[in-house]
């Protein structure tokens, strides 16, 4: 399936990536090449095949609903770009 510039703009929004006006044509072309490669899949007959998400068809292992981790907020926030009073700081969203 071919992609055009408007698809790339939409994808950039979905993926939270800023695609500059200078690179958008190049990105569109490259992405088109990759999609042409993966389009080879369409030729495979998979009507009777179940999708495989895990090589052993395993499901996520569950554990008892118990608190096992100690509180390490200070350690985790020590590497944050900006924090205050134990909270992560981000730009204002609502005026």
């Amino acid at each position: 399936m071919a992609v055009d510039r408007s698809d790339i703009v939409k994808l950039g929004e979905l993926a939270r990536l800023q695609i500059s006006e200078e690179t958008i044509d190049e990105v569109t072309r490259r992405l088109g090449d990759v999609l042409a490669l993966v389009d080879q899949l369409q030729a495979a007959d998979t009507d009777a095949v179940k999708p495989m998400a895990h090589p052993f068809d395993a499901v996520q292992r569950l554990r008892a609903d118990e608190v096992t981790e100690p509180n390490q907020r200070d350690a985790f926030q020590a590497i944050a770009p900006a924090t205050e009073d134990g909270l992560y700081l981000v730009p204002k969203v609502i005026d």
Partner: protein
Amino acid sequence: MHNKTLAELSAGLQAKTWSSVELTQHFLDRIKRLDPNYNSFITVTEDVALAQAKAADARLAAGETHPLCGVPIAHKDIFCTQGVKTTCGSKMLDNFISPYDATVVANFQAAGAVMLGKTNMDEFAMGSSNETSFFGPVKNPWATGCVPGGSSGGSAAAVAARLAPGATATDTGGSIRQPAALCGLTGLKPTYGRVSRWGMIAFASSLDQAGPMTRTAEDAALMLNTMASFDAKDSTNIDREVPDYTASLNDSLAGLTLGVPKEYFGEGLNPGTQAAVEAAIKQYEALGATIKPISLPHSHLAVPAYYVIAPAECSANLSRFDGVRYGHRCENPADLADLYKRSRSEAFGEEVQRRILVGTYCLSAGYYDAYYRKAQKVRRLIKQDFVDAFKEVDLVIGPTSPSPAFAFGAKGADPIAMYLEDIYTIATNLAGLPGMSLPCGLVDGKPVGLQLIGNYFEEARMLNAAHQYQQVTDFHQQAPADIA
């Protein structure tokens, strides 16, 4: 000392021929002197290494017999290391100091192994040439104008240049085996779930697997003994006893059946690579193995399926890098959306952004069934090919990579050409099978890799076959000419 294998260094430590501090200092000195030629390390952890070596010497003096106690190794910079920078080859994590150790790292620490540093890699493990690292490309010690392969190119170059006797690596589509092939090493990707992925920065969670990068199969067995473990913290990790992978290295190969897939010897395979692999297959016959032609009919769909599934998973995994809690944050963002978008666009490289966009596309409304679900169905067909093959053969044998190491920039302008570098390795990741690469010759002075693919959890059988081959050949003992 640097020309000795990990097993030989371990024997010397146990016999008190050298101490861990002496050994560690020797490798640290080599890294300082020689790594500017290769760029194989992002971070050298000299102080940590010497402290760990001192502690290992104390353990050895007290009678510690673990074969990895006091042995220095390097870790791919994809593994979280507490208190030490972990970048994953990206500007995004250039400032990231992990608050915890990955399980693989913790396993080596518990054994008394010494960490020399963190090795260079393609950004977020996306690449087959090690040209996408934010920290610059790694040079192949066999030919410094050529790539070492990716994404574990730093680990491969470090071991090939004798800057470390062994290193950890990871393989999502061939990232252990392909650089091992291009650098003349033994690299092993275990069965999916055999080694914990906890603390290993995720690229494509249903494909990623950690494994060892060494010079010999015996060393790979020694490292895998420590890497493989059950880990409740990784819910995809398989709870299964870890055998002693060194125990069966000396078993005879008489009665072993090797399957040669016709699809791995078609168009695109370098003639020199083909000749070296065919000679290796003959060598296996001489060792008592039976050779059987087989077919893996969906092989041609492995690369297309991979380039839907891996980007889809990467687009989800990399959504955590938003500039809020850790990693790169842009200057003066206008609002939250601007913070997300600019932080990610400034810090992710071109290949990472391309894969995020492909993954986002394949998972988006309207395309999910046509791409993602379709690729998952093809994935089962690819797995079934192997299940059928293993009813008739014990191991699959073929080339690791279509050609020896290529020059920098040779494929950088064409992502599709780069993606085809992993054409023989990707199917095992999709199927979750173990695979390994070992050196089987030289073409124009550059190494060629032989690939062995095993049935699920049959790493020991692969290692046995690789070790027996290395008993009668010397490709694994050859070294790049100018490593000093």
